[in-house]
């Protein structure tokens, strides 16, 4: 399978990428690792006229101590996140979740920024980013702005990024002593989560889910129950409340709702112990 024809532009830095987006508008797509975009282009589910390759902007591949947070460049590959000693110490859930993405060859190419910007409700990394309450930094023609993780995912494969904006950095709070858990349920090696649940417990407890709606999401019902003093078991019982899980050959809504209750129970058990 070969993608439809396109013009290829290599951007040397973020400003050049944003200039190309501004010039070509909706016809252009950024390509980071290409590990979501190329499969879609091969099936011709997307046919950009212009591909702007940002994959070699090395300045945007870093994991730095930013004081109260860890700053991660958007072009940082999954393998670098997974093996980062700084992240293992300061936000271990993120390194752990990165290690559950696809397989090693996928993790050598795919980037954290690409995974978030793609906005796939089934992808793993958004769960960690939501449960950590990270901040995303976007750059556009008029400068830079910060977006809270909970405001970032707006619809199926849609995010708060404007068409001329690029994700440049992800800021993850340091939570070295927090309890955490990631429960990914799938049935085949290297597969996506049928349902995934991330929990971070640091005083209060944040719970995020993947593949339980149109977007990766924070579980309002579980978090409210916990804040109101419910036990972990009672909080897990409301895990599917108010949600419309997708239905596909892996499971219908009822099955996913059941999985969500079980996985939230396990995640809370691990994170809050």
């Amino acid at each position, binding site marked *: 399978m070969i993608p439809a024809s396109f013009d290829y532009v290599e951007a040397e830095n973020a400003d050049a990428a944003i200039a190309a987006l501004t010039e070509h508008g909706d016809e252009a797509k950024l390509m980071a690792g290409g590990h979501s975009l*190329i*499969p879609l282009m091969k099936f011709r589910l997307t046919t950009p006229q212009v591909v702007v390759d940002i994959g070699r902007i090395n300045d945007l591949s870093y994991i730095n101590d930013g004081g109260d947070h860890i700053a991660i460049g958007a072009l940082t590959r999954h393998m670098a996140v997974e093996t980062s000693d700084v992240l293992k110490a300061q936000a271990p859930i993120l390194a752990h979740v990165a290690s559950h993405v696809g397989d090693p060859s996928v993790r050598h190419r795919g980037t954290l920024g690409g995974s978030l910007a793609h906005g796939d409700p089934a992808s793993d990394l958004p769960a960690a980013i939501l449960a950590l309450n990270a901040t995303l930094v976007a750059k556009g023609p008029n400068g830079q702005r910060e977006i809270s993780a909970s405001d970032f995912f707006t619809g199926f494969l849609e995010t708060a990024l404007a068409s001329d904006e690029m994700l440049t950095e992800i800021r993850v709070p340091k939570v070295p002593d927090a309890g955490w858990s990631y429960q990914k349920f799938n049935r085949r*090696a290297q597969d996506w989560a049928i349902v995934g649940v991330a929990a971070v417990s640091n005083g209060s407890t944040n719970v995020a889910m993947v593949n339980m709606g149109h977007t990766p999401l924070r579980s309002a019902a579980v978090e409210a129950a916990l804040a109101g003093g419910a036990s972990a078991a009672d909080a897990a019982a409301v895990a599917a409340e108010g949600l419309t899980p997708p239905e596909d050959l892996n499971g219908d809504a009822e099955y996913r709702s059941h999985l969500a209750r079980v996985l939230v129970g396990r995640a809370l058990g691990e994170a809050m112990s």
Partner: protein
Amino acid sequence: MQVETTVNGKAMSADVEPRTLLVHYLRDELELTGTNVGCDTSSCGACTVHIDGESVKSCTMLAAQARGAEITTIEGMASADGTLHPMQAAFMECHGLQCGYCTPGMVMAASSLLKENPNPTEQEVREGLEGNLCRCTGYHNIVKSVLTAAGGA
């Protein structure tokens, strides 16, 4: 567009369309047909090569993205005098292949794995190869081959 790379230590160049996948650049332009296409949907790993020393599925990368990169394919694993790479020798010794279709990708993925984790456990080998499918062997002898190459079996 002209795509210049270094493949198995040699400078290479080909004029391709931007939409050309790396696997087609290698197979059709450079005539290095050891890299196989199995699924064409990023799942099976038959197309695995090394980009700057790391395993990558070449059906899921544009040739353009590899501009300037050092690429190693299965053809570049044995020495010039024909001595097999230790991973190839281990696959031969342990019967790590039957039809051989998955083998180039398995050898490339497994050698990348050992670079990152020189002494893996059996479980780590199985997880490290989860992106490579084999329809014949049932994986047992593939895992044995990798552990043998690592010196641990």
